[in-house]
């Protein structure tokens, strides 16, 4: 047997643990050949830098009792805190710690969110499906296609109608899909009359089995504008193929300014403004998000009055992923030729200017009355306190965007939260961590459960049941004194 397993000597069971697996206790694990401890309640620790996300078994654990109780350096997240639904009881953990001389209170709970979902941004030009099309997982409707943003397709998944308004299976599958996406796992989605896409927060989308590499540099017209100067003199005509706006160099304002002469090219589709064409083909998953494999299929015959034999034509997609070079023969027919080195450089430049395509997942949910009642006896005061920026809301220590208007409706980037931060109940609904941080005096004013406030040091003593994580450097420290928006 390949001896990549390590022997855990934390107890007399002496488990042999393979890399990436835990011992029989589920508390100790082999992480890349190192024995590490995994404990259930996550304590974000500002003192330790990221990358050291679990506490090594021996050395660091000794430090827990003393040095880190100074406060302000440790923030307790709601992950694993449990919930007290229906929330007439105080939240499971109400922690106080000293930050810059002010007693801060973090009310830690895991909220049960029936009203919640995921906003998914998929960086792709490819046509995933028509707006409002149903998005399915395992055959069940879990959401819909919403707007196309610049270089990205947005999907809206979940929401109370899918979670509790449909069949039991629809609710279960929706909950499962949201849970997987929020916990950073992959989900396979099928769009009615559209593509199948494999999505996972922080990774490239896979559309109909093809991994999306790049996000386009701009629409076809914008690409003409950006690269016109680099093409000038090296080629007579450029068409940037894009399902939204296909650009044509000689007709485009950028080409006109440079004095690019007319080429006699004739594009299919609907001309919008000079050099910009809509709908040159049908949406698809090929050239520039269209359905074409042969770029010449979007061209009509060249105008014999204008075009001349030998005219050089570059056709390229908005990511540079597809490109072809042609020269007109004596009959003014485009004949494919090898791309000249000078043009190869410009195609490479388009590619270089494309950012890596990613899927991003924002959790969105509303903290309802019962959850807020776990924080204070007077729930509406919590809403006001959040509005007035006296109370900071975080999800698993990650910053959230609080929507203006009524209630506490939040959005949070799941990739900024610790792993496996979300759970579920079979209602079905998601269980998400949510923390409210405010000054102790403000907490008293808004009717907080003052007799349930525990000092942070009491959490440290229960170290067996807590998981200590390094704080993520990209997240503002939840207890830091600056107000939101700074």
């Amino acid at each position: 047997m390949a001896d990549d397993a390590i022997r855990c000597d934390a107890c007399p069971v002496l488990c042999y643990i393979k890399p990436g697996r835990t011992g029989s206790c589920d508390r100790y694990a082999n992480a890349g050949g190192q024995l590490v401890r995994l404990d259930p309640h996550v304590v974000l620790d500002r003192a330790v830098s990221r990358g050291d996300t679990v506490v090594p078994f021996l050395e660091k654990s000794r430090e827990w009792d003393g040095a880190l109780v100074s406060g302000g350096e440790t923030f307790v997240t709601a992950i694993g805190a449990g919930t007290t639904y229906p929330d007439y009881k105080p939240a499971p953990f109400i922690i106080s710690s000293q930050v810059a001389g002010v007693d801060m209170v973090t009310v830690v709970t895991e909220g049960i969110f029936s009203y919640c979902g995921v906003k998914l941004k998929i960086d792709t030009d490819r046509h995933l499906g028509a707006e409002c099309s149903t998005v399915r997982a395992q055959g069940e409707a879990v959401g819909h296609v919403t707007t196309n943003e610049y270089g990205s397709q947005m999907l809206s998944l979940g929401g109370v109608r899918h979670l509790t308004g449909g069949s039991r299976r629809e609710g279960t599958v929706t909950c499962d899909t949201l849970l997987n996406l929020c916990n950073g796992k992959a989900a396979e989605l099928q769009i009615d009359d559209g593509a199948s896409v494999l999505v996972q927060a922080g990774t490239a989308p896979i559309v109909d089995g093809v991994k999306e590499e790049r996000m386009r540099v701009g629409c076809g017209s914008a690409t003409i504008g950006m690269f016109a100067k680099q093409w000038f003199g090296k080629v007579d005509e450029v068409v940037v193929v894009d399902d939204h706006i296909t650009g044509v160099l000689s007709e485009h304002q950028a080409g006109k300014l440079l004095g690019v002469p007319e080429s006699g090219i004739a594009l299919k589709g609907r001309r919008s403004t000079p050099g910009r064409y809509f709908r040159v083909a049908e949406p698809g998953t090929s050239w520039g998000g269209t359905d074409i494999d042969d770029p010449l299929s979007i061209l009509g015959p060249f105008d014999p009055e204008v075009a001349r034999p030998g005219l050089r034509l570059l056709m390229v997609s908005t990511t540079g992923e597809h490109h072809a070079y042609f020269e007109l023969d004596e009959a003014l027919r485009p004949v494919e030729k090898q791309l000249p080195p000078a043009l190869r450089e410009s195609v490479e430049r388009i590619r270089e200017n494309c950012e890596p395509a990613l899927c991003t997942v924002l959790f969105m949910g509303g903290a309802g009355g019962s959850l807020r009642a776990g924080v204070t006896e007077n729930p509406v005061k919590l809403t006001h306190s959040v509005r007035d920026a006296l109370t900071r809301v975080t999800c698993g220590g990650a910053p959230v965007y609080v929507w203006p208007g009524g209630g506490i409706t939040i959005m949070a980037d799941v990739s900024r939260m610790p792993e496996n931060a979300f759970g579920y109940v079979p209602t079905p609904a998601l269980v998400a961590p949510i923390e409210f941080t405010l000054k102790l005096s403000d907490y008293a004013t808004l009717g907080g459960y003052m007799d349930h406030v525990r000092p942070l040091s009491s959490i440290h003593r229960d170290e067996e049941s807590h998981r200590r994580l390094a704080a993520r450097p990209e997240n503002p420290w939840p207890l830091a004194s600056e107000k939101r928006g700074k």
Partner: protein
Amino acid sequence: MNTLTNRAQIRLLPDGRRLHMQDGPIDVIVEAFGEVHEIDLAYRAAAARFVEILDELCSELAFLRRPAREDGDLPSGAIARRMLAAVRPYASQIFVTPMAAVAGAVADEILAAMISAAKPSRAYVNDGGDIAFHLQPSEMFVVGMVERPDRTSLFGTTTVHSADPIRGIATSGWRGRSFSLGIADAVTVLADTAAMADAAATVVANAVDLPGHPMIVRTRACDLAPDSDLGECMVTQSVGELAPNEIDDALKAGIRVAASLLHSGLIRAAALNLQGETRLVAPAGCAQLADVREPDRSLIHA
């Protein structure tokens, strides 16, 4: 002699009522009800017995990881004997090691220690979901049941009264902490002891299966955990989405086994769960699982 207190963690949970004890892979929550003095005595007895358990089991671990035999040697430890007794009824027919009943046997043993030292009106010992409990006459317990062992959410409750013979509950499934040869998300068994329930839940969960189904990913247990008692047995790692008739077939295979265990008195009732489908195996008129029901879907929580 108490050489183990440094390793074992014993403390009251923040609610001030339940006792949490952990040592190596053993993680137990104990709660006793009744007079304060009796609860105190019961907790002291539980803790005193608990600190011995892991070393006691590990001293015979090699034996306990080998397949049980109907006529083989007896182990020396009290818990090891409970384990063997619980799996022996299956030993002639299937591959089973005493480890299949370890959690339940530990729960039974701690409960026995509590009851011999004190007189709580009710008490339970929950060893990772395998539960032994004690009821004085006219007392009862309401027990929540989970759909999947890796997600602690209830799909229903069941009530056990003192007049019922049931004193043990256990749940097994491929998503749980132990390996399973079957594909059940959870099989919950009610039996006379926790060790019996534990062994039976393992056996029934193994039987819920679709042998050779392409959507089921299995791996040799020893490739995941080199010292697993299941050795080269293929344990379930993932189960794809099954068609309704496949779910039905797999559950039927489990129901056949559960029904025969019910007939022979090895279990009192069982609930089998696979991909959202639940089947109950219980004698006609059995009250225990009659009130297993889904939570109210119209609840809006947040």
